[in-house]
């Protein structure tokens, strides 16, 4: 991990290259994170992956739902420099486009880091985040005909109620 001043230097360097590409930083529990603008995520990750920073390995891409916080969604990229054994996290915050069924969108980084292909599919599968330019944007774990984005916070947990002696009156219709 870069330390806190190193993180600020990195953010300033990225902002000088592409103005407004880094919206903020966070340094907690000795973990460095850049809050990136989702519109320029490809420039940010491409720059971090090249010399001299050389975070060449994308160890994870995952999504998060921060409901009720705004912006609601985030895509997290965990980068690793294997020579220096140094990690950095890039968070791209995405706003919910609203109730009309529209999905949040962000550029795919599959051509920069091929490992992102399956992990972006997983983020699409569970959170309904669309990755523009992804070569194969299908669901990956849930059935192909599944409806809904099951890891979102407003998605019902599902399952059947479990009946114990103390709550059998509260569950309607369990003795059908």
């Amino acid at each position, binding site marked *: 991990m870069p330390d806190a001043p190193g993180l600020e230097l990195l953010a300033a360097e990225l902002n000088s290259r592409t103005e407004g590409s880094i919206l903020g930083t966070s340094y907690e529990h000795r973990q460095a994170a850049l809050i990136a603008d989702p519109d320029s995520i490809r420039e940010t990750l491409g720059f971090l992956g090249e010399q001299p920073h050389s975070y060449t390995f994308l160890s994870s891409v995952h999504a998060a739902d921060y409901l009720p916080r705004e912006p609601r969604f985030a895509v997290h990229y965990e980068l690793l420099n294997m020579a220096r054994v140094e990690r950095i996290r890039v968070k791209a915050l995405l706003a919910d486009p609203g109730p009309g069924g529209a999905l949040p969108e962000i550029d795919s980084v599959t051509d920069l880091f091929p490992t992102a292909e399956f992990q972006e599919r997983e983020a699409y599968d569970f959170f309904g985040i669309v990755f523009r330019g992804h070569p194969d944007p299908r669901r990956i774990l849930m059935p192909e005909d599944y409806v809904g984005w099951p890891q979102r916070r407003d998605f019902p947990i599902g*399952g*059947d109620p479990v009946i114990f002696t103390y709550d059998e009156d509260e569950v309607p219709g369990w003795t059908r």
Partner: protein
Amino acid sequence: MWPATFGLACCAIEMMAMVSARYDAARYGAEVFRASPRQADMLILSGRVSIKMVPVVRRIYDQMLEPKWVISMGACSSSGGMFANYAVVQGADKFLPVDIHVPGCPPRPEALIYGVLKLRDKIMGDPSLGWREQYAAHGTEEGQRPWEAGGIEVGRAGSIPADGRLVSTPGDGAVDMESGRVVDLEATAADMAASKSAAEASEDSGA
């Protein structure tokens, strides 16, 4: 009974232990895990069944030859268990006729062997325990298409009227609940008509 080689989750480890030398299901003739469902007559659902797995399980079950039986092993395949969520089927009897539920998380190999023995008792003993009666599932035998034969009534256990001894089937048969045998109503009616005409003929000759 030969089980199909089919493990779903962690219960499959206990299922494998069932045939080890320590527990030795060979004592009861259930040790031959067949690699082909065509050669198996028992399906052990050993673990949680995710909704993506359902068509696979159902296809393996459909490929097994009659007669065939299903043991639901553990809490997850019987009721969903701790996985009360969007991804797991809440009880395998929503898509399969299950004969024996073995409780436990996971059940010990002894418990699974006990389930096999209960299934053996069920097969050799009272035929009214058979799952076709229990689930009103006549017409699902090999080679029959229940949806083409006029539809079957999908009912829960206990939906059979208590007073009626006959459960209608897609064909012209009915099931005698006491013996578990299919009674052919058409043949019975033809028999009755034949004996009636024979009686009339004898009356005629007598007169």
